[in-house]
């Protein structure tokens, strides 16, 4: 295998593993801040216990998120040095701002939160968690601005053999970044919501600490309901923008080969990229693709055949990941609505509770599928329309990357097992009240 393929696999491994922990940090930090604020305001010790219970899980998760994040900053330089030299003028600054504005605050305050219970008043201590939540969110803002620039480069000129910044506000306020941010952060909150609901459901099924977990479930439910709906709405808005600025990605994720108006949506397909068609197509809904992409049933949707072969993304992965994400996203809305309707009769809904326990992994699958879609759908570009991924790698020996890839898989695998074990251990423990 060559350096490009191995480096891609390594980057995918590192980012997808990191992204197992980030969404929960983003959402759970806010939920814990809410719980702790309720404690600080009312003095009700149940809220303190909730803060500590979910906090313990949060810290295990947060720790893994931090260490796997260091990898990513290094990796742009280690494996994608040509990319780094080409885009550093813009991309590098965004990462540096993420570090100075967000990472510092997050990492400094986590120490205060963990160790400072006796040093700060309950209100001050709760404020610290709010700041941690804010800092994590700020970090997400900057990294998404950075990724959005890769998807839709703006505010730059090509000069001195590289991309150079010409308009900073164009980069940070661009529509793609705003839409991608709100869509991603909502999805992260859905992951957190279903985690909290699922763990709470587990305890409610065992009829353990009922008030505690009903309260926790309802906080999760509030997030789950609001953000599963928002994720879908923002997903649609973002999708329309992607149709406009990344038409090849739209074509790929729909396995859409022939340019036409009133384009149909195919529910399932297996693409035959060599022959520029699909082997199988199941379930074709006329006009739906035009409508989804352009909010106009008569809109023309470009097919993959309209793009030169070397500029087409792979088809199968974007196609499947898109459907996985949307299918699951729809399920989340349904489950949240059912939860809302049954929120005062949870103990009488054992089937629903069981489903919620089993649904904990589903938002993780959906959010990873979404990111896979975003990145694989952008191929063969590393910066859309400007630089190809294959031109971006570092001048390394493939043996070096093979060894580091193996090390990542091994170490991340072991850490993942240890972390998973600890999270389950703490999530299933009956809390001290």
């Amino acid at each position: 295998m060559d350096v490009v393929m191995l480096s891609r696999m390594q980057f995918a491994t590192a980012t997808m593993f990191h992204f197992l922990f980030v969404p929960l940090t983003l959402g759970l930090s806010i939920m814990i801040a809410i719980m702790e604020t309720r404690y600080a305001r009312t003095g009700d010790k149940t809220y303190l216990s909730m803060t500590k219970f979910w906090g313990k899980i949060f810290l295990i998760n947060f720790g893994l998120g931090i260490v796997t994040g260091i990898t990513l900053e290094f990796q742009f330089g280690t494996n994608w040095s040509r990319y780094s030299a080409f885009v550093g003028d813009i991309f590098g600054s965004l990462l540096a701002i993420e570090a100075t504005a967000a990472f510092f605050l997050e990492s400094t305050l986590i120490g205060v939160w963990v160790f400072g219970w006796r040093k700060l008043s309950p209100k001050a201590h709760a404020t610290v968690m709010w700041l941690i939540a804010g800092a994590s969110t700020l970090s997400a803002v900057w990294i998404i601005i950075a990724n959005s620039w890769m998807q839709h480069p703006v505010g730059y000129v090509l000069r001195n053999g590289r991309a150079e910044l010409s308009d900073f506000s164009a980069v940070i306020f661009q529509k793609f970044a705003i839409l991608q941010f709100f869509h991603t952060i909502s999805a992260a909150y859905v992951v957190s919501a279903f985690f909290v609901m699922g763990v709470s459901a587990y305890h409610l099924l065992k009829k353990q600490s009922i008030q505690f977990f009903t309260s926790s479930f309802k906080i999760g439910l509030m997030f789950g309901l609001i953000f599963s709906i928002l994720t879908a709405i923002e997903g649609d808005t973002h999708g329309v923008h992607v149709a406009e600025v990344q038409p090849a990605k739209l074509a790929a994720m729909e396995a859409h080969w022939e340019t036409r108006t009133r384009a149909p949506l195919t529910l399932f397909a297996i693409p035959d990229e060599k022959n520029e068609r699909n082997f199988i197509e199941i379930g074709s809904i006329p006009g739906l693709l035009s409508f989804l992409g352009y909010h106009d049933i008569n809109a023309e949707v470009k097919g993959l055949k309209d793009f030169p072969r070397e500029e087409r993304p792979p088809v199968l992965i974007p196609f499947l990941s898109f459907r996985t994400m949307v299918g699951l996203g729809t399920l989340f809305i349904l489950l949240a609505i059912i939860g809302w309707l049954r929120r005062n009769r949870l103990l009488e809904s054992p089937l629903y509770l069981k489903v919620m326990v089993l649904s904990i992994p589903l938002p993780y699958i959906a959010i990873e599928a979404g990111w896979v879609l975003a990145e694989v759908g952008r191929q063969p570009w590393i910066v859309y329309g400007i630089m190809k991924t294959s031109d971006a790698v570092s001048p390394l020996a493939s043996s070096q990357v093979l060894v580091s890839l193996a090390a990542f898989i091994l170490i991340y695998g072991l850490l993942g097992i240890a972390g998973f074990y600890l999270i389950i251990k703490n999530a299933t423990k009956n809390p001290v009240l």
Partner: protein
Amino acid sequence: MDLQGIWFFLWGLLWAIFFMTDGFDFGIGILYPFLGKNDFEKRIMINSVGPIWNGNEVWLITAGGVTFAAFPLAYSIMFSSLYSGLMFILFALILRGVAFEFRGKVDKKSWRNIWDICIFAGSLVPALLFGIIFANIFQGLPIDKAGVFQGSFFDLLNLYGLLGGLLFLLLFIFHGSLWLSIKTGDELHERAISNACRIWPLLLISAVLFLGASWFFTKLYNNYLANPILFLDILLTVAALFASRFFLKRKDLFKAWFSSSIIIAGSVFFGIIGLYPDIIPSGISPDFSVTAYNASSSPLTLKIMLVVVIIFIPAVIAYQAWTYNLFKGKVTEKDLSYDEAY
């Protein structure tokens, strides 16, 4: 002073702050199996850095991020050339970070032993390798015209590189001992002090060797000879070295630790000042060197980043200092009784 010059200095400063802060975390991790004679003492040691190690580590992320933002070509060449070394450091930092958090979560000796090894190795490897790496940068890397590294990881393990590794190792062990002596009482406190006293003469020798070796293996002194006032950095660093011993003997431990921070900063700047304007000198030809002038970002980016840094870095220093102050005082058994303590 031009934009690139200012950024060159800031770049050096960020690395210096990283080594001044995470340096004592590394030191404590290295001393961990030696000074922590039982589980209680080990816990005291890691809880002495518990509230602050994570914030300290972010100086590395920032130093790396700023290298990327201000000198993208340098970031690109440095990180790809030093691939294997950086991967070792990365895995060490990952294991160290997770170990702090996971160690206390299962009440089994075998579980704790695994994470204890990770704390030790995860502190030793970065301390050593950063020293080796920076010494090699001071010396120059075999970078060709295309910016491609014409060497291997093992080429870094040359005499000067190893002297750099030794220096950093001793600096951080010394720094860590002093921190530990401030944060602990009883036997651990005494052991930390006597360890610092034992390490100091080794540190002195290592520093002298490194200063001397720099004369033969690098061109660092050229800048100093051209601008003799720059020798003040070396003088200040040596003064701090002797001051740390002076304060140590008088059990004025915070002043000793502070002096130790100055030694670290001074050592980093010894190299930074000597390197200017190179960031990565090329051992193959000076024409291929990566400099602050051929590797920098555009003036617009440098200006924007300057504003960002002027706003945020003082703020970060302020709230990190606040954190250090919040947790001042010795780590006691009471501190270990928290659920969340390490």
